[in-house]
Every structure is written in structure tokens, then in C-alpha cells.
């Protein structure tokens, strides 16, 4: 029997596993008739998932946790049995800010430009110089308060001594508005997913300063999210959905399929835009500067390879720790447990008939600064960072 599902998504490259699962028939092969519903805001996705208009959704990993903890909104327990992507965001800055950071680098830019500690320290000097001149603080855009983009930007600049709440203005901007805002000078930079960074570079108005994989080696970015209640009443359907998404992720990760995947994603009802840009994103080969400089990284975006799809509770713990660090949540062992239980590696393993084996060790978040992450001692871990807004 075919099971009908409505799944909400935002037109971003990391929705690829869902789009390909439908387009290439992996969902149908699992007996699923999926209707993908394109949405314009994460708030809409969250609300429609919460009230049951969607059976499942492409969701920011931190929103799944925030919703389960009742942070900033109504409390609806969510589970994430599948990571749609790791990493995949980038920090893009205006040509003026890029030049300013370059000018403040303490050494040869060729060695230091992909070193996030060096750029964050340079940013700190840019901020200090602007303050001295009486200039307005820099404004940086990110996509949502509960987003990896927010935490990646904050983690990066704080490591260089920039307080993200005091020294700059961090503003939420919907991804489709990022590029215009940079062009108009409303923001000096942003952290966003694909394809928006590449679009800014192609238009000649931005430089990609960092892939977020420079900041964290493995960050859970988007998850496949369902209501916990729904997962309990529809275990077979959920398992089928996990298998379909896995088949799609495996397909996407085969280099010989990338051109076809890019064409599928480029269809206007999916993501739209230029297939070449989408393929560059999937390949991790991005034009980072309007002068035509390219940068390639095997860590730019992971859709399934290297065990990326398995949701590891340590990833949820790291995201929860960021909520605590920046004052969005107060710390409690119960809340930590709730956050970790959002990432359901057990459901993932059961659906695929795989023995549970973590692809990451507990310390493998791989942040460029601070001590290795320890989910068992979040207070101690956070105490190692000078800048933060911990509220207890």
C-alpha cells in the first residue's frame, strides 16, 4: 500500500536528499508517495510541522532541539532520525570588509586566509579601528536565531575576541534577501547555505571568506524532522522514509551523478537557479572571489558520505551547548538529555538494519578553537570560552 506524505522544505542545496528521493523514485520504491511543499521561512516549516500540516520537514538542526525544549516558541517534541547534511554553509563578506580583514592579517594572506583564528583576530582589529573612527558597527546576517549559521558566526568571531552581541550587529535575514542586502550595503557579510554565497561571488559583490568546515569539521546542519508522536505511531513509514533518503544520499554522493542531481535541483519547483553553481556546491569546488579564484574542500558539504547521515547525539549536545553559551537556554542536565534524545541514531540504525556504530567519536565536532568538546561536562567546556552570555 502506498503511503502519502507531505514534507516541507526550503529551497537550499541541503534539501537534495529529499528532492532526489522523490525525483529518482527512491521514495516510490519504498511505497511512499511524497508531496514536497516549498516554503519561504523556517518559522512556517516549524509551525506546519508542529500542527501536523506536514508529516516531515527539512529543518535546521537547532530548531528541532529548540522546539523539543520549548525555546522561543511552543514546545513540541521533535525527533531527527536522519541528517540531511553536515556543513555546507559559508561566510561571505563584502569586498570592503574582505580588504579590511586582509589588511589586518598578521602575516602572509596566502597562509592565513583559510585560518579562522587569523581572520577572526583580524576582524577584531577591524572592529577596533572602526570604533576608534566612530564608524557604525559591522552588520552581519544569518538565517535564524536557532541556526548553525548563527552559532558558526558567533564561534568564529568570539575566538578572535569579537563579542557577537556587543561589537557587531547580528541580524536575521531570509536567505533570498542576503545577496541584495550585501549589494545595498545593509549588511557587511553573512553566513548562509548554498547557493547564496556563490550567487554573491558570481555577481561580484562578495568574497567567500570561510567554508564553515574551517570552523567545525562536522556540524549537523539540516535534519529530517518529524514529530515524536508521529514517529511513535508511524514507525514503519518513518523507516521507509529513512531508507528512501539514504538511497538518495548515496546516489547524490556518486560523482558521476552530480551533473544529473544538479539539473534536478535546478528545476524551478525545487531550488531553481543555475545548475553549474549547484554542481560546484555538491562538488565542494566554489568560486570564492569575483576575480575567479576557486577553492576546493572535501569537507564543504557532506550529504551522506563518511557516515554523515547518522544523527549523533554528540552533535545535538554541541548545538545545545551553543544555546547555553549565547543565552538562549539555561543549562540543566535534563535539557541536555532532551536535546541529545532528539538525534535518533537508534531509529536510523534500525531502519537500515545496521549495527549502531558512531561515525564520530565524542570529541569529533572538531572546532578550530577551545578544548575538545565534552558532552559530559558542558559547563566546564563553556568555561574555557571567555566571551558568552551564559544565563545560569
Amino acid at each position, binding site marked *: 500500500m502506498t503511503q502519502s506524505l507531505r514534507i516541507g522544505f526550503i529551497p537550499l542545496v541541503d534539501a537534495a536528499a529529499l528532492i532526489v528521493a522523490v525525483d529518482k523514485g527512491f521514495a516510490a520504491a519504498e511505497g511512499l508517495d511524497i508531496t514536497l511543499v516549498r516554503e*519561504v521561512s523556517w*518559522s*512556517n516549516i516549524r509551525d506546519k510541522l508542529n500542527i501536523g500540516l506536514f508529516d516531515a520537514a527539512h529543518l535546521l538542526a537547532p530548531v528541532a532541539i529548540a522546539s523539543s525544549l520549548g525555546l522561543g516558541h511552543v514546545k513540541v517534541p521533535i525527533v531527527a532520525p536522519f541528517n540531511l547534511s553536515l556543513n555546507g554553509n559559508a561566510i561571505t563578506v563584502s569586498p570592503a570588509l574582505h580588504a579590511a580583514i586582509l589588511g589586518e592579517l598578521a602575516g602572509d594572506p596566502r597562509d592565513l586566509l583559510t585560518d579562522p583564528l587569523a581572520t577572526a583576530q583580524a576582524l577584531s582589529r577591524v572592529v577596533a579601528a572602526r570604533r576608534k573612527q566612530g564608524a557604525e558597527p559591522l552588520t552581519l546576517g544569518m538565517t535564524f536565531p536557532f541556526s548553525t549559521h548563527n552559532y558558526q558566526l558567533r564561534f568564529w568571531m568570539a575566538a578572535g575576541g569579537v563579542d557577537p552581541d556587543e561589537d557587531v550587529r547580528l*541580524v536575521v535575514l531570509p536567505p533570498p534577501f542576503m545577496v541584495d542586502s550585501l549589494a545595498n550595503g545593509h549588511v557587511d557579510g553573512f553566513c548562509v547555505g548554498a547557493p547564496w554565497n556563490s550567487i554573491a561571488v558570481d555577481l561580484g559583490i562578495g568574497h567567500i571568506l570561510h567554508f564553515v568546515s574551517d570552523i567545525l569539521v562536522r556540524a549537523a546542519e539540516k535534519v529530517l524532522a518529524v514529530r515524536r508522536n508521529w514517529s511513535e505511531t508511524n514507525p514503519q513509514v518513518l523507516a521507509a522514509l529513512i531508507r528512501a533518503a539514504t538511497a538518495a544520499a548515496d546516489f547524490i554522493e556518486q560523482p558521476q551523478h552530480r551533473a544529473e542531481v544538479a539539473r534536478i535541483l535546478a528545476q524551478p519547483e525545487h531550488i531553481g537557479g543555475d545548475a553549474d553553481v549547484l554542481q560546484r556546491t555538491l562538488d565542494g569546488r566554489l568560486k570564492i572571489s569575483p576575480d575567479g579564484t576557486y577553492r576546493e574542500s572535501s569537507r564543504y558539504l557532506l550529504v551522506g558520505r563518511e557516515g554523515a547521515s547518522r544523527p549523533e547525539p554528540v552533535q545535538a549536545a554541541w548545538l545545545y551547548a551553543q544555546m547555553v553559551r549565547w543565552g538562549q537556554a539555561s543549562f540543566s542536565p535534563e535539557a541536555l538529555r532532551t536535546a541529545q534524545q532528539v538525534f535518533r541514531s537508534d531509529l536510523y540504525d534500525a531502519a537500515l538494519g545496521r549495527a549502531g556504530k558512531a561515525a564520530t567519536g565524542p570529541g569529533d565536532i572538531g572546532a578550530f578553537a577551545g578544548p575538545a568538546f565534552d558532552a559530559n561536562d558542558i559547563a566546564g567546556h563553556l568555561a574555557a570560552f571567555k566571551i558568552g552570555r551564559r544565563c545560569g
Partner: protein
Amino acid sequence: MGTESSPKIVIVDESPIRAAILEEGLREAGFTSVAHIREMHSLLARIYALDPDVIVIDLENPSRDVLEQMFQVSRAVRRPVAMFVDQSDTASIQASVDAGVSAYIVDGLKKERLKPILDLCISRFNAFAKLQDELERARSALEDRKVIDRAKGILMRMKGLTEDEAYVLLRSTAMREKKKIGEIAQSVLTASELLK
């Protein structure tokens, strides 16, 4: 503030017509303090400047995510905002999502006072959607008429039919092929272009 006098309502909507319909409805219902923001740039600053008790935004607006920043504790925010839709009122949530509107209430305003505002927004949003629907149907009917007239002209010229005979031919073909007469007329136009 705003507990005795009419609460200050801000409508965030890029559609000036829908905002006007909503504003009119609110004023008729006795809500005298209504402002409209249609420019999404610096949205938060605009909202803070107006200092509303209630914010209404359409669900097709990507800037809904910008409003989420108001829930965050930060130095830019003077008073916390809570979203109205709580779990106890699922009927309201459903109705507002169906209508495509969402409302936020600023702390301090009693929840009961939002209910009539939200109900009004829902009914006006639905009325607007219906109006748009009717306009769209009227427009496509007009389009069909033009296409049918041109197809009739072609059939009259090429087959020596009268206008009535040409129309009967289009209509009977449409019925036989279970298609709309406008579609048949369009294929006559396309065919005649190809055969030129």
C-alpha cells in the same frame, strides 16, 4: 500599556491591497490604532519604532523569520514578545495557517484581547484570497474569450463556416475530447501557426 485604549496593531504585508482590506476591517471593528509596514528592509527597527502590541504578518512573507529574533534576549529588544498561538487553541492555529496569516502578541496585552483581532484577520485574509480567485477566474475567462474568437475566425476562413457553426464545432470537439473549449481553441491557434 495598551490595556485600556485600543491596542496598537502593526500589519507587515508586502501586498498593499490586502493590507488596506485588513486595516479597514480592523478600524470598522473599533481598532483605531493600525499601522502598515510594507518595506522589509530594517524590519525590526521599523517595528521597534512603532512599538506595537500586536504584529500581524502573512505566511508567504520570508521576513517571518526576522520576527523570530524578537524572541531572543538581546540589547536591541526592550520587551519580550510571545507568539500568540499556544497549544491550547489548535482550532485558531489551524484557521490562521489555512488563511495564511500569523499574529504575534507583545507581552502585557491580555490574550483574550487578541482573539477578535486574529479572527478578523483570518476572515479578511480569506476574503482577499476569494477576491483574488475571482479576479483570476475573470481574467482567464476573458483570455479564453479572446482565444475562442480568434479560433472561430480561423475556422470561418478555412472551412467556410458561419460564426455559429464555428463555435458549435469548437464546442462539440471539446465535449468529445473532454477538454475545455479554451484549450481546443488554443490548439486551433497553434495548429494554424504551424501550418502557416
